[in-house]
């Protein structure tokens, strides 16, 4: 790295990464339990966490299979939910600037949490550290959680533990720094949420969140003086 992150910033990034790791472990445990309860094997649950590595898509697949649908039918929502990561890749490409074999590894870690953590930092070295520390810690905890969850299966009711609140709470925490920084981001967040909620009754899974991207497009292309509008 050309310039090292400041020590305090580095410590804060690692602290945040560990916090996300704890959440990922608990959430991974939920996924492992839900996956085996849905009829996926332990190996399949683990493969999804290790290779697909995108929580929302994994839950969608388990959900469709658990509801008696074929896993092929789940591919639509699974990949629609994964498209979000493609957009994140566009956001992260100039930040990470990775090429060749390194890009192949980088791509695997492009998810909600790593994107939000990276974009919350202000300097390039800190953005990169945030991406990698979050990605590595989250990958390890998510997979360890999945392993335990698939092992204990339905012996533990994760809803009783309140773990279904973890997802929205942590995603809110991830988007928070951007909301604090800019008025425009607040409007874009509100518009994105409104678009998604409007589409929930009529569009298949994945589409509502994807359609929210139009809020970012409009918000990004509006001239600066419209900020307060």
């Amino acid at each position, binding site marked *: 790295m050309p310039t090292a992150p400041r020590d305090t910033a580095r410590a804060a990034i690692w602290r945040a990464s560990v916090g*996300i790791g704890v959440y990922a472990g608990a959430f991974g445990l939920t996924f492992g339990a839900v996956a085996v309860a849905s009829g996926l094997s332990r190996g399949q649950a683990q493969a999804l966490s290790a290779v697909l590595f995108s929580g929302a898509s994994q839950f969608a697949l388990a959900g469709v299979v658990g509801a008696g649908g074929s896993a092929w039918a789940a591919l639509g929502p699974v990949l629609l939910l994964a498209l979000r990561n493609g957009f994140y*890749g566009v956001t992260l490409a100039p930040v990470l600037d990775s090429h060749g074999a390194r890009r192949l590894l980088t791509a695997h870690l492009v998810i909600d949490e790593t994107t939000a953590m990276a974009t919350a930092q202000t300097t390039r070295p800190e953005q990169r550290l945030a991406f990698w520390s979050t990605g590595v810690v989250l990958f390890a905890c998510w997979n360890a959680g999945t392993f335990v969850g698939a092992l204990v299966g339905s012996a533990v009711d994760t809803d009783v*533990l309140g*773990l279904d609140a973890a997802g929205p709470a942590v995603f809110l925490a991830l988007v928070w720094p951007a909301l604090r920084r800019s008025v425009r981001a607040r409007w*874009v967040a509100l518009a994105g949420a409104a678009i998604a909620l409007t589409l929930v009754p009529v569009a298949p899974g994945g589409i509502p969140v994807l359609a929210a991207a139009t809020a970012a497009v409009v918000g990004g292309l509006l001239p600066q003086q419209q900020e307060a509008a």
Partner: protein
Amino acid sequence: MNLWVPVLVACVGSYVIKLAGLSLPESVLADRRVQRVTTLLPVAMLAALVAVQLVESGDGPGPYALDWRVLAGVAAGAVALVLRRGFLVVFVVAVAVTALLRLLVPGA
């Protein structure tokens, strides 16, 4: 039916999408307007994700099935955010409040 094939197709598809996003030509990414939009993309989609997860948290009929105990938990997490707490605190507060409310007020 062998679930492995669709599971692996989903894995490969997801990876290709991630890689494709990272692989856009730099000339596209250098555009100021593209940069402004891509900065806002995670904001719009994460906010949408929070909203969708909340209205899908309950078991009720219809497209909007909000579990008010999850909403209360997430709201408590939001208070922690306003108080500038980290991820861990937000996570613990949201989960604990939801679990506590489920204990006190069972049923849908």
